[in-house]
């Protein structure tokens, strides 16, 4: 089947197979790419944004946490504001996460997580508000405590000042009441102690606040309890009402402070609790965010893995397909290349033959154009002869015209004579008819004579009968009767002869009449013919005139022909030169064809082509190289009729349908 296919079909089939493979590979790749694209799309549009949004939630949650922690530690409003802002961001991203989770059925978990986180965030927000409240309360308590502490310190200072004043007074007394002074110093010392204790408590509270250690705070609180016995001691020593009032004031302040301390501690614990809760809640959010993010990352990883595996599958299919396609394409390329190369080699051989033939033909053309040149010169001489002959013809044509005129006159005369003849013929016809009539009359007369002769015969016989009856007497009468009878018979015979003669003459007359008619008709035709002859002669005369004009034109034409012939001679010489060049070109072509053959076959100097060229030289010579004119003409004829020795049809040159084309394939 492959051998029966045409080259175009083979090419089309080969390329078709390759294209089919390419399309198949391409479509497989496209399908795989589509699936990869789908996975990547899922990754890009669902998983990555999921992770991003969750990360944002996580980030902003962390930030919120940090801000809140900062707020909790520093009680700076700025932190709170930042925390609120961050919380708003968290909410926003959670809303985004929920929206994103709702956008795809694959992100149900995200949605759930987002919802949970939202709820938790609300809790957190609540806690934030609580924290704020707590912090504010703490601040109030602290302020109050500070105030109490300051009152305490002030009373202490006042007390010390009054004691110092009293001490100064007592010291100024002489003698100095040693007991009183010692009491006074004791009191001052107690107050100083009280102040120191208060300071210690304050330091302890601050320390505990600074250290974030409620234990320290509790210790400080315990220290307040040590103040009270000292105060009792002091009040026991003191007698002055003012100082007692101061001590009382101090005691109150200490008590208030203690209460404040307790409140503070409670609040603080509360705050710690809140912090814990907040952290838990925040940690919940964070863990949710974390798990969701991990899930998202996992999904992304899965999607990426899927895409990767799909890509790997596609790559392996593509590689296998490419290898197969390349093998098939190489097979077809080999098949088609061998086919084309063989065909082209044959064509090249044919071109080689053709160029050989062209070369020989060019040589033939050269020789024939030389002959043509000779012929042209001969033609020129012949043309001169023709010119002189034409002059003779011109004079002859003039003579012709004169003769035609004469002939016209003669024809006119002939016509007149013929007309006269026709008239005579008509008269003769009439005469003939008259003769016929008189012959009829003569015939009737002869019949009468015959009857008379018959009657006479009968009479004579009767007379003979009578004579016989008369016997001897009637003998003479019998003789007479016999004679009469003889006469009657002779008359009858004569009448019969005359009758036949008359009948003859009648027939002749009829024939004559017919002949006359024919002659008359013929004369009429002669008249017509003479008319026509006159016309024709006229035409001849005119034609002669035109002929003479034509001849003058012919003369001109011949002079032109003479010129043309001379040009012909010149151009045939040029043709000879050109054909020699053509021969050279043909040889060049030959060499080029050999080169082409070498290119195609890769061989050096194809021996078969050489052999063919040698074989070709036989018929080329046979075509009459430098032979006689006759031979050349014959060869040309043979070429025209397709009987030439080397007329190749394309099927013979390119054997597309031959089986040998791919036999060794």
């Amino acid at each position, binding site marked *: 089947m492959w051998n029966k296919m045409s080259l175009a079909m083979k090419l089309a089939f080969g390329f078709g197979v390759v294209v089919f493979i390419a399309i198949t590979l391409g479509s497989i790749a496209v399908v795989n790419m589509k699936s990869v694209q789908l996975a990547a799309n899922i990754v890009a549009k669902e998983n990555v944004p999921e992770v991003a949004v969750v990360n944002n939630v996580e980030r902003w949650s962390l930030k919120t946490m940090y801000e809140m922690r900062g707020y909790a530690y520093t009680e700076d409003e700025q932190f709170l504001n930042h925390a609120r802002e961050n919380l708003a961001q968290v909410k926003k991203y959670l809303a985004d996460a929920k929206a994103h989770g709702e956008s795809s059925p694959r992100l149900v978990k995200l949605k759930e997580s987002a919802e949970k986180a939202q709820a938790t965030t609300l809790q957190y927000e609540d806690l934030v508000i609580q924290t704020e409240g707590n912090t504010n309360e703490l601040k109030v308590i602290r302020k109050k405590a500070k105030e109490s502490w300051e009152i305490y310190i002030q009373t202490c200072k006042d007390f010390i000042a009054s004691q110092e004043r009293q001490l100064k007074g007592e010291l100024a007394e002489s003698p100095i009441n040693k007991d009183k002074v010692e009491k006074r110093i004791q009191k001052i010392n107690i107050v100083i102690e009280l102040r120191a204790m208060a300071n210690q408590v304050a330091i302890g509270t601050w320390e505990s606040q600074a250290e974030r250690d409620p234990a320290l705070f509790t210790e400080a609180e315990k220290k307040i309890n040590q103040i009270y016995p000292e105060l009792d001691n002091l009040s026991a020593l003191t007698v002055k009402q003012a100082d007692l009032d101061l001590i009382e004031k101090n005691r109150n302040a200490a008590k208030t402070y203690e209460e404040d301390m307790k409140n503070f501690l409670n609040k603080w614990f509360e705050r710690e609790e809140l912090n814990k809760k907040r952290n838990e809640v925040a940690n919940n959010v964070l863990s949710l965010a974390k798990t969701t993010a991990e899930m998202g990352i996992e999904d992304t990883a899965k999607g990426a893995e899927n895409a990767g595996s799909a890509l790997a599958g596609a790559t392996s299919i593509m590689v296998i397909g490419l290898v197969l396609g390349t093998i098939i394409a190489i097979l077809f390329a080999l098949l088609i290349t061998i086919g084309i190369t063989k065909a082209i080699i044959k064509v090249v051989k044919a071109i080689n033959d053709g160029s050989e033939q062209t070369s020989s033909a060019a040589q033939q053309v050269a020789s024939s154009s030389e002959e043509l040149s000779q012929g042209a010169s001969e033609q020129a001489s012949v043309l001169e002869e023709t010119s002189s002959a034409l002059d003779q013809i011109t004079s002859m044509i003039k003579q012709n015209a004169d003769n035609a005129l004469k002939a016209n006159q003669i024809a006119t005369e002939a016509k007149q004579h013929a007309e006269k003849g026709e008239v005579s013929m008509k008269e003769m016809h009439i005469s003939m008819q008259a003769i016929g009539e008189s012959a009829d009359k003569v015939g009737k007369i002869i019949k009468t004579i015959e009857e008379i002769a018959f009657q006479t015969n009968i009479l004579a016989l009767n007379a003979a009968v009578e004579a*016989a009856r008369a016997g001897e007497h009637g003998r003479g009468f019998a003789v007479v009767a016999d004679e009469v009878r003889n006469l009657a018979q002779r008359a009858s015979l004569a009448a019969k002869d005359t009758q036949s003669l008359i009948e003859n003459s009648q027939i002749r007359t009829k024939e004559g009449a017919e002949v006359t008619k024919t002659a008359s008709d013929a004369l009429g035709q002669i008249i017509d013919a003479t008319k026509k002859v006159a016309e024709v002669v006229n035409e001849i005369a005119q034609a002669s005139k035109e002929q003479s004009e034509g001849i003058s034109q012919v003369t001109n034409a011949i002079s032109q022909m003479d010129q043309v012939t001379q040009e012909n001679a010149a151009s045939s010489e040029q043709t000879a030169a050109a054909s020699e060049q053509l021969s050279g070109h043909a040889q060049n072509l030959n060499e080029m064809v050999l080169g082409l053959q070498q290119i195609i076959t890769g061989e050096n100097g194809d021996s078969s082509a050489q052999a063919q060229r040698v074989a070709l030289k036989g018929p080329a010579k046979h075509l009459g190289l430098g032979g006689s004119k006759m031979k050349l003409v014959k060869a040309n004829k043979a070429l025209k009729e397709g009987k030439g020795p080397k007329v190749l049809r394309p099927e013979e040159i390119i054997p597309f349908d031959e089986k040998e084309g791919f036999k060794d394939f």
Partner: protein
Amino acid sequence: MTTTQNCLAKEGKYLTFALGKEDYGLEILKVREIIGLMNITAVPQVPAYVKGVINLRGKVIPVIALRLKFNMPSIEMTAESCIIVINLNDALIGIIVDKVNEVLNIKQEMIESLPNCGADVNTDYILGIGKIKDTVKILLNIEKVLSEDHQTV
């Protein structure tokens, strides 16, 4: 013997006439006259050969077609056809012949008897055969030919 007597015709003059190609002879004394053809009045209830009667100068005479009598084919009358009026036992009778030839004088040596044609053949009405030059004339015994006819008429 009677045959011999009948066969030997007398020498004398005979009127010769033709019926078809044959010539016949008739004793001239038996002939009354020769006339051309004239109107024949047909008579009913007679044999076919009796053509009818004619009026000859006041006398009514029967006319017989001799061709029919001799069983010869009938022909059209011609210009030469004639009626020969014969005197038969003082009665006149006409016979139609094709043509009247001439009056011949036949001598005894020119007459021969009819050769014997067979016993059954009746040759009573032939007197003999007249030899004139190379031709032969049948000499008729007209009385015998017409005898029965006459009686019927």
